[in-house]
C-alpha cells in the first residue's frame, strides 16, 4: 500500500523530464486524449458556426417568397453544404470529442489505445473542412445537389462536387480511424473489474456507434468513389444509358445514410443517460435494457434504409417490409424514453443547465420520434417525402436531440473542470492521461468507471450503487474523497483492498490484463 504514492511520484518525476512541445506544436503533436478531445470540440464549434451562417442565409432568403439575396443555384449550395458541414463537421466530431474526453476516464484507461492515430484522425479534419468550404470559391460554386449527392444531378455538377467527394473521403478516413481507436480502447483497456455490463452507458453507446461507423463509412466512400469515376473516368454506374442505375446510388447512399442517423444520435443517448441520473440523484432505470435497446437500434438500422426511398418506386412487398422494419425502431427507442422518464420518477430533481438540456432532449427528441413514426407509414410518407415535414423531423432529432445533449455534456464537463473534479487538459500538457495532481492516477481511473452516473458526484453524498457490492469499498471512502475532494487516506485504504494490481497500471502504460481473481 505504501508503495502506491512512491511509484506515483517516481512516474511523474520521469514524466516531467520528458520534452513537452509548447505553443501551437503542443496541439499539433499532442497524443493526450483530453487535448485531442478538446481539439475535436473546438473544431466542431467552429464548423457549427460555419454551418449556422449558411442556415441563417437560407432562412434570410426564405423570409418571404421570391428571390431576395441569393440565386437559386447558390441557395442549393447553401443547403447542401449546411447539411454536410453540420453532419460531418459539427455533430460527428463533437461526439468523437466527448468520446476522447470521457471514454478513457470512464473505463479506467490511461489514454486511447492508439494515441498517435488519435492525433492523425483529428488533424485530418481541418484539411477536409477547408476542402469542403473552399469549394464555394471554385468555378460553378460548391456542390448543389443536396447533402445526399444523388446521381445523376451530382454527375452533372461542377468542380465543387469533386471537392466535396474528396472531403467526404478524408472525413470518412478520420471517422474510421476514430472508431477503430474507440473500439480498441473499450475492448482492451478497461480497468480490471470493469466488465462490459458495468460500463457507463455513454461508453456502451459509443462502442456501438463505433461499430456502425466502421460498417458504413466505407460504404459512403464507395458510393462517392463510384460517383467520381462516373464523373471523370467514363464509367456508367449511375447512368442508365450505359447500363447503370441512378437508383443504385440511393441504395448505396442510404445503406450508409440510415446507420449514420444513429451514429449521430446514439452518443447523445449515452450523454443523456449520464446527465439524467446525476441530477435526479437516482440510478439510471433499466441499465441492461438500455444496452439492449441501443444494440437493437443499431442492428435494425441496417435493414431499413429504403424508407428514404418510398417515392422512388419499389414492389409493394419492399414497401411493406421497410415500413415494418422502420416502425420496429420505435420499440427500442420507446424503451429508452420510458427508461429516462422512469429514472426521473421519484428522484430528487434539480434543474441545473445540463439537466435542462437533458429534459429538453427527451421532450423534443420524442417529437422527432413521433414524426419519424408518421414518416414510417409508407402511404403517408408518399405525401410527406421531400417536404419540410422531413426537414423538421430530422432537425428535431439532430438539433433538439444530438445538439442539446452535447450542450448539456459540455456544460457538465466544464462544470467539473471548474471545480477541479476533472483533470484539466489546458493546464497540464502530457503525453498521456494527466489526472489532476490531487488524485491518485489509479483512483481517477477507477473512479470514473465506477461511479460514472454521477456527473457531479462529489457534491452528492451517497448515490447510485448500480454495480452492487464491488463499489462498496470505494463508497466507504466517501464519494467526495474518491473524486479528489479532500482526505486521500481513506481512498488509499479502500483502493489497496479493492484493486491492488492497479499499482502498475498507474504508471500510465497499458493495463495488464489480469484474470481478476481477487474480485
Amino acid at each position, binding site marked *: 500500500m505504501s508503495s502506491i504514492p512512491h511509484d506515483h511520484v517516481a512516474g511523474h518525476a520521469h514524466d516531467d523530464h520528458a520534452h513537452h512541445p509548447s505553443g501551437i506544436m503542443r496541439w499539433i503533436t499532442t497524443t493526450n486524449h483530453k487535448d485531442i478531445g478538446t481539439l475535436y470540440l473546438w473544431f466542431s464549434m467552429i464548423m457549427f458556426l460555419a454551418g449556422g451562417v449558411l442556415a441563417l442565409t437560407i432562412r434570410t432568403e426564405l423570409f418571404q417568397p421570391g428571390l431576395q439575396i441569393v440565386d437559386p443555384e447558390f441557395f442549393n449550395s447553401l443547403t447542401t453544404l449546411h447539411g454536410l458541414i453540420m453532419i460531418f463537421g459539427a455533430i460527428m466530431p463533437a461526439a468523437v470529442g466527448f468520446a476522447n474526453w470521457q471514454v478513457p476516464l470512464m473505463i479506467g484507461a490511461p489514454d486511447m489505445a492508439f494515441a498517435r492515430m488519435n492525433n492523425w484522425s483529428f488533424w485530418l479534419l481541418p484539411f477536409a473542412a477547408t476542402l469542403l468550404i473552399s469549394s464555394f470559391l471554385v468555378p460553378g460554386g460548391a456542390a448543389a445537389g443536396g447533402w445526399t449527392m444523388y446521381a445523376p444531378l451530382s454527375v*452533372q455538377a461542377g468542380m465543387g462536387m469533386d471537392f466535396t467527394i474528396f472531403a467526404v473521403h478524408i472525413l470518412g478516413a478520420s471517422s474510421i480511424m476514430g472508431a477503430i481507436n474507440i473500439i480498441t480502447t473499450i475492448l482492451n483497456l478497461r480497468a480490471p473489474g470493469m466488465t462490459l455490463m458495468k460500463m457507463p452507458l455513454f461508453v456502451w453507446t459509443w462502442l456501438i456507434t463505433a461499430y456502425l461507423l466502421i460498417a458504413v463509412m466505407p460504404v459512403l466512400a464507395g458510393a462517392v468513389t463510384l460517383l467520381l469515376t462516373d464523373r471523370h473516368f467514363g464509367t456508367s454506374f449511375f447512368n*442508365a444509358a450505359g447500363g447503370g*442505375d441512378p437508383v443504385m446510388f440511393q441504395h448505396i447512399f442510404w445503406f450508409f445514410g440510415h446507420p449514420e442517423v444513429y451514429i449521430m444520435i446514439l452518443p447523445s443517448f449515452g450523454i443523456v443517460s449520464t446527465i439524467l441520473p446525476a441530477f*435526479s440523484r437516482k440510478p439510471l432505470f433499466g441499465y441492461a435494457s438500455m444496452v439492449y435497446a441501443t444494440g437493437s437500434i443499431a442492428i435494425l438500422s441496417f435493414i431499413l434504409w429504403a424508407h428514404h426511398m418510398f417515392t422512388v418506386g419499389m414492389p*409493394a412487398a419492399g414497401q411493406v417490409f421497410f415500413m415494418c422494419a422502420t416502425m420496429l425502431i420505435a420499440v427500442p427507442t420507446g424503451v429508452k424514453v420510458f427508461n429516462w422518464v422512469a429514472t426521473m420518477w421519484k428522484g*430528487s430533481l434539480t434543474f441545473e443547465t445540463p439537466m435542462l438540456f437533458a429534459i429538453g432532449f427527451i421532450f423534443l427528441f420524442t417529437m422527432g420520434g413521433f414524426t419519424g413514426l408518421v414518416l414510417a407509414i409508407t402511404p403517408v410518407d*408518399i405525401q410527406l417525402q*421531400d417536404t419540410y415535414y422531413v426537414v423538421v423531423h430530422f432537425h428535431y432529432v439532430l438539433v433538439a436531440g444530438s445538439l442539446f445533449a452535447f450542450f448539456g455534456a459540455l456544460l457538465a464537463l466544464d462544470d467539473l473542470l471548474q471545480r477541479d473534479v476533472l483533470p484539466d487538459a489546458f493546464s497540464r500538457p502530457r503525453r498521456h492521461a494527466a489526472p489532476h495532481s490531487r488524485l491518485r492516477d489509479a483512483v481517477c481511473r477507477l473512479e470514473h468507471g465506477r461511479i460514472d452516473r454521477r456527473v457531479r458526484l462529489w457534491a452528492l453524498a451517497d448515490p447510485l450503487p448500480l454495480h452492487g457490492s464491488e463499489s462498496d469499498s470505494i463508497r466507504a471512502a466517501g464519494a467526495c474523497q474518491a473524486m479528489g475532494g479532500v482526505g486521500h487516506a481513506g481512498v488509499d485504504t479502500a483502493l489497496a483492498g479493492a484493486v491492488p494490481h492497479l499499482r502498475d497500471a498507474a504508471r500510465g502504460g497499458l493495463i495488464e490484463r489480469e484474470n481478476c481473481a481477487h474480485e
Partner: protein
Amino acid sequence: MDRIDTASAATEIARRMGHAALAASLLASSGAVYAEREYNLQTPVTSIAAQIFDLHTYIMWTCVVIFVGVFSVMFYSIFAHRKSKGHQAAQFHENTMVEIVWTVIPFLILLFMAFPATKTVLAMKDASVPDMTVKVTGFQWKWHYDYLDHGFSYVSNLTTPDAQIHNREVKGEHYLLEVDQPMVVPAGKKVRVLITAGDVIHSWWVPAFGVKQDAIPGFVRDSWFTAEKPGIYRGQCAELCGKEHGFMPIVVEVKSADDYAKWLDAQKKKSAASVDDPNKVWDPNDLIARGAKVYAANCVACHQATGKGVPGAFPALDGSPVVNGPKDAQIKIVLNGVVKDGEPTAMVAWKNTLSDTDIAAVITYTRNSWGNHTNQAVQPAEVKADRS
C-alpha cells in the same frame, strides 16, 4: 423588395395567423373540417389521398395520446419529485415486469398501425386496368405530357412572370404554381401515369391525388389516380433537380367527361395542324419571331434572356464564335449537343425534342439577336440535311 410587397407579406402573415386561430378552435370541436386548412394535408380528391389523410390523422392522434401519457408522468415528477421540495430520491433501478410491458404494448400499437397502412400500400400499387395512360417526362426544368392513347404531346412550362419572382410585381394567387398547358384528365376515370425523366431525377407530385413518384432517367415507373372532382390541382417537383427545381410546377386540370372530350378533340386538331413541313421556305422575320419563343421555352434557363449565359457554367451566345461562324457547326451542336471527354454536358442534344423548324427558328433567332448580326436565316431543310 418594394413597399407593396412588405405590405402584402404582412397581410399574408395576418391571414395565416387567422387561419391558425380559426383552425385551432375548429380542431377543438370537430376533426372533420378539411377545407382550406393550410397546416394539414391538402383536401383529398382521390380515394388514395383520402386513405392517406385518414391514416395520418389516426397515427397523429395515437401519437398525441402516447405523448400525453408519457409526458404527464415526466412533468408530474418534475413538479413533485424536486429536491427543492425536499423529495428524497428512491433507489430502484429496474423492474422486469414494467420493462416487458412497455416493450410489448408499443409493439401491439404498431401492429394496429401497420395493418391499415399495408392495405393502402397494396391499393396504391394496383395500377391495373386503367382507362387511359399518360406518359410524364421530367426535364430540367419542365414537364412533358405524352397522351399515348391519342398520339399527341406537349410541354408544360411555368408561366409566373420573372417580375413576380424578382419582387418587381405583386405576386399572383398561384405564384410558382401556374403553367401554360396543364395536364388534362377526365373526372372519375382511372388514369395511369408512366413517369420518367430525360436528364436527372425529378418527382411528380400532386398532393390532392396522393401521388408522388420519382421520375428516374432511363427507367419508367408508374402510378395511378382517379380524380373524383373536376377542378385544377397543383403540385411541384419534389426531388431536387438543379437550379430551377422550384420553378417546375405540376398543374392537373380535371374536366368533366364532356369537357374532356372537347379538349381532346381540339388538342388532336391542333397537333395535326402544328406539324410543320420541313421543306417549307420561311421568311427570316417569321423564323426569328418563332425562334424567340423556342428560345424562351428551352434555352433561356442556361443561356439567359440576355444571351450572356452564366460565366463559368453556361457559355454566352452573344458574340459567340459558333453563333457568328458557319451555320453548319451551330446546327450540329444544337442537334447533337456538346460532348466533352466522352461525357454529355449540360448542352443536351435537341434532335429528339425539337422539330427541324423549331431548331431552324431558334438558330436564326440567336444569329440575329443581341450583338449578333449575321443577317443569315437557317431554313428547316438545312437542319433536316444535317440530321444523320
